[in-house]
């Protein structure tokens, strides 16, 4: 129920700006998988990779939902996907260095919004003076009704595949920038129980790999 309320509030806030009844219906409708890559990279040169055993979390909320309990799910999934595409996971040591380093980080932050708490009156009043395409701020000149706050937690999981070849050859030791070969980003609104979240996360992580056919180095 809480999920729907959050989404309903988001939608109402959005639809206030114009008279559009359509848009996302469920929180999961806002999930996205986003990827980008170095178009000059020859991925067959990066057949070995390393993967740390934890996900690094960045959040501004001590009660953040994303947390260590998702680590094994995310790490296993990413490992499976890279292995299926023809890459070999190695543990870095003095003798073996992977060609690529894969890191996984997760971000979450609370977002705050406002809405007037008297929607029906608001609509009733507004309807008559509606002018198409005119967007306005819900706070502008509307003091008679009170305001409430809503909070939603926005989360992202970022998978980076970083070029390690220059580093282990000692060429990159002075370099301040990392060459990111591939980046996969899963973004959505964090809501629902752990199982639902895990499902949504795995679908989107898989989608990141599915939409990146250039990663496949199986010959």
């Amino acid at each position, binding site marked *: 129920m809480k999920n729907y309320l959050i989404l309903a509030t988001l939608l109402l806030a959005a639809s206030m700006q114009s008279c559009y009844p359509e848009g996302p219906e469920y929180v999961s409708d806002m999930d996205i998988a*986003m*990827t980008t890559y170095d178009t000059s990279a020859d991925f067959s040169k990066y057949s070995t990779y390393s993967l740390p055993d934890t996900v690094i979390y960045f959040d501004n909320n001590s009660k953040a939902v994303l947390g260590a309990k998702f680590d094994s799910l995310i790490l296993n999934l990413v490992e499976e996907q890279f292995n299926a595409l023809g890459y070999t996971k190695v543990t870095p040591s003095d003798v073996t260095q992977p060609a690529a380093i894969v890191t996984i980080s997760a971000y979450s932050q609370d977002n705050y919004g406002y809405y007037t708490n008297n929607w029906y009156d608001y609509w009733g009043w507004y309807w008559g003076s509606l002018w198409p*395409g005119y967007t306005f701020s819900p706070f502008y000149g509307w003091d008679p009704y009170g305001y409430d706050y809503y909070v939603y937690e926005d989360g992202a999981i970022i998978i980076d595949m970083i070029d390690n070849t220059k580093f282990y050859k000692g060429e990159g030791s002075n370099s301040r920038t990392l060459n990111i070969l591939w980046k996969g980003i899963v973004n959505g609104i964090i809501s629902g129980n752990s199982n639902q979240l895990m499902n949504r996360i795995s679908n989107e992580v898989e989608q990141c790999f599915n939409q990146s056919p250039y990663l496949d180095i199986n010959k």
Partner: protein
Amino acid sequence: MLLCLIGAVGISKAQNLSMNYQMSIPTGSVKNFIDKASFRGFGINYHYFVDQEEHLSLGIDVSWNTYYNDFNDITGKFKFKNDNNIYTITGNQYRYVNFVPMLAQARYSFCNNMALFRPYVGMGVGTSWCEKRTEVGQLRSDISRWQFAMSPEVGVTINASSVIGVNVGAKYVYATQAADGRIPEISQFTFGVGLVIFGVE
């Protein structure tokens, strides 16, 4: 002019104001973005008759339609400001186009002001404001521009009384592309029905 049946009203109607509900069907390149008719539209126009028999009128016409279409789990390529990388993003896409032509119009009505049914043809030239928006996840891409627009029309005014009538009309609107094609060339067929209020000068 068999159509020009003499109506019950024969009062001079030097000007009229017409308010119409309208639906529009997109054609041309805007269909690549949204290929779905819009049932959310409204138009208003004011006309002033030039001659005594009220054949020729000049006026202004402002109308609006919102197009909407959503796509589940669609993959697209996007660029962000200040970032040269191309991002492939998969998610539900919600697409909107707001299209607001504002036209100077000339109309010729085939029957004089004594007729019950007054078919007309007209031509409008002016500008249109177009807003194109794509939402995917929490990302949004929004662009709006003014375009050059023109619009031939046909319709009929039915004089119900000396003060009020009904308008049924169809027009084709063409608007040029803008922002190097990021605002597409828009063409649409619009069908409207509404009320006409007559006023004596």
